[in-house]
């Protein structure tokens, strides 16, 4: 475990060295949030009106937090990186290393996400408050609960990105798979709570990982103990599932890997 914590710490320090890069990325995050704030401003005739159970205040905070998770863990580059390692055979170097590739990659990504979470969360709190006038009302215990499910959502999301990247063992390029996954995740959960979908679609979406990844967004606008426990249990199940999937693809893939020396 110690070696993975070193990998985490190393990535945190490296990311902090390039903290300036966050400014440019914050602009992209701001754009996404700005467009959606304008859109929802247009959709709500009256701030107290509720659309599918969400008031304008709740909707703006829901979208802000779900966009935040999407932004922190979107993994186009990670997928391409893993794909590249598999295609050029560099992944073979991991065989003789004293670590598990999946766990090592996860901790590296967690290190990166830890720093970006701090920057982007502060940024989102500022712009969210500027648009809505206040922060969501949460007690300290509720806030701790939200932070816990937020951390688990980030971990599950990163594991799913790793799994998609590892699919390059089977397909030559897994990037198109990531495009589809990210767009479904964006539309069916990030930009719209599942309550906006027809009942039949809600029943399907509740069993997808998107539901557990967007758990913190639902809790931040409407915290209740029952929903918190349900989200936590579902996240536990998905954490095991996503990790198991990564290990399965990696081990199966490494068995059939052919690398030319050079």
């Amino acid at each position: 475990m110690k070696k993975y914590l070193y990998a985490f710490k190393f990535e945190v320090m490296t990311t902090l060295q390039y903290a300036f890069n966050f400014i440019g990325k914050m602009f992209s995050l701001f754009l996404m949030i700005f467009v959606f704030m304008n859109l929802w401003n247009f959709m709500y005739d009256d701030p107290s009106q509720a659309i599918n159970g969400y008031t304008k205040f709740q909707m703006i905070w829901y979208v802000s937090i779900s966009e935040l998770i999407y932004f922190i863990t979107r993994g186009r580059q990670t997928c391409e990186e893993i794909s590249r390692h598999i295609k050029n055979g560099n992944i073979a170097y991991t065989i003789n290393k004293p670590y598990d590739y999946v766990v090592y990659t996860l901790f590296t990504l967690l290190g990166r996400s830890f720093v970006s979470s701090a920057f982007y969360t502060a940024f989102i709190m500022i712009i969210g408050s500027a648009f809505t006038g206040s922060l969501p009302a949460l007690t300290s215990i509720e806030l701790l609960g939200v932070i816990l499910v937020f951390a688990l959502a980030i971990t599950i999301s990163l594991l799913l990105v790793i799994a998609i990247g590892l699919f390059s063992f089977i397909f030559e390029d897994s990037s198109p798979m990531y495009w589809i996954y990210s767009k479904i995740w964006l539309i069916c959960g990030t930009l719209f709570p599942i309550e906006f979908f027809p009942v039949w679609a809600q029943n399907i979406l509740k069993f997808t990982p998107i539901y557990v990844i967007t758990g913190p967004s639902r809790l931040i606008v409407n915290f209740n103990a029952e929903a918190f426990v349900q989200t936590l249990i579902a996240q536990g199940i998905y954490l095991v599932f996503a990790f198991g999937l990564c290990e399965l693809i990696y081990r199966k893939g490494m068995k059939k890997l052919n690398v030319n020396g050079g």
Partner: protein
Amino acid sequence: MLTAAKNQIKVTLLTTKYAVMREMLNKATFLSNVIFMILNNSTFLIQWFLLLSIKESIGGYDIHKILYLWGLASLSYGVAHFFFKGAFHIGEIINEGKLDSYMVQPKNILISVSTASCSPSAMGDIIYGFVLFFVNDPSVVNFLLYTLFGITGGLIVTSVAIILNSLSFWFARTDSIADAGMNLMTTFATYPGTIFKGATKIILYTIVPLGATAYIPIDILTNFDWKYTLIVLGVTVLFVFLAFFIFYRGLKRYASSNLMSARI
């Protein structure tokens, strides 16, 4: 003059042809990229069906106009990235001192750099743009106008990319500015201009030329007006001219890194 232009077009078409052939070496990957891009774009229709189920029209945009908006955005983006992908990497090429191999060619440098590579998935954007058109409005006149606006939109998007990437002639590491600018164009191009107010609206019709790539063409397609068509054409010419002007002004400052490279 005419022969020179004819030769330039011939070379440009050949460069594009070879860039496409290079990408099609692995046909399965090329096709999967195209198909997945079409599917990828289609997911956004869900968003609009959901929004339009809440309100019949969003800022005067009904499903008919939304399909035009998405179709034109895809088509412009596809034209820009399929035919001129190189334009989006000019900053990188300048920073790495790789312009030398283009400068020794006897043809226009900017066109050579811009057409040197092609994005296979952008073909998916082009196909998707036309599919949306035929689902929405299969009339001949509008088809011609729609194709024209797809091309003008593509040229404007490419010009903006060239202008932003050319900043690398003057400043180091401007790639994040270019990325942010392109991000801004793509994000706003897929939402009705009418939902934005005040300063944002003014910016979208001026500095960020989305008025000419999306909003005005949609108005023309639903209610034809010659004057607006000429404005779109004028803005396109202006942006293309600006792109050439800024690139060649910057090129005078370019310093080679003596990097040996071959274009294969």
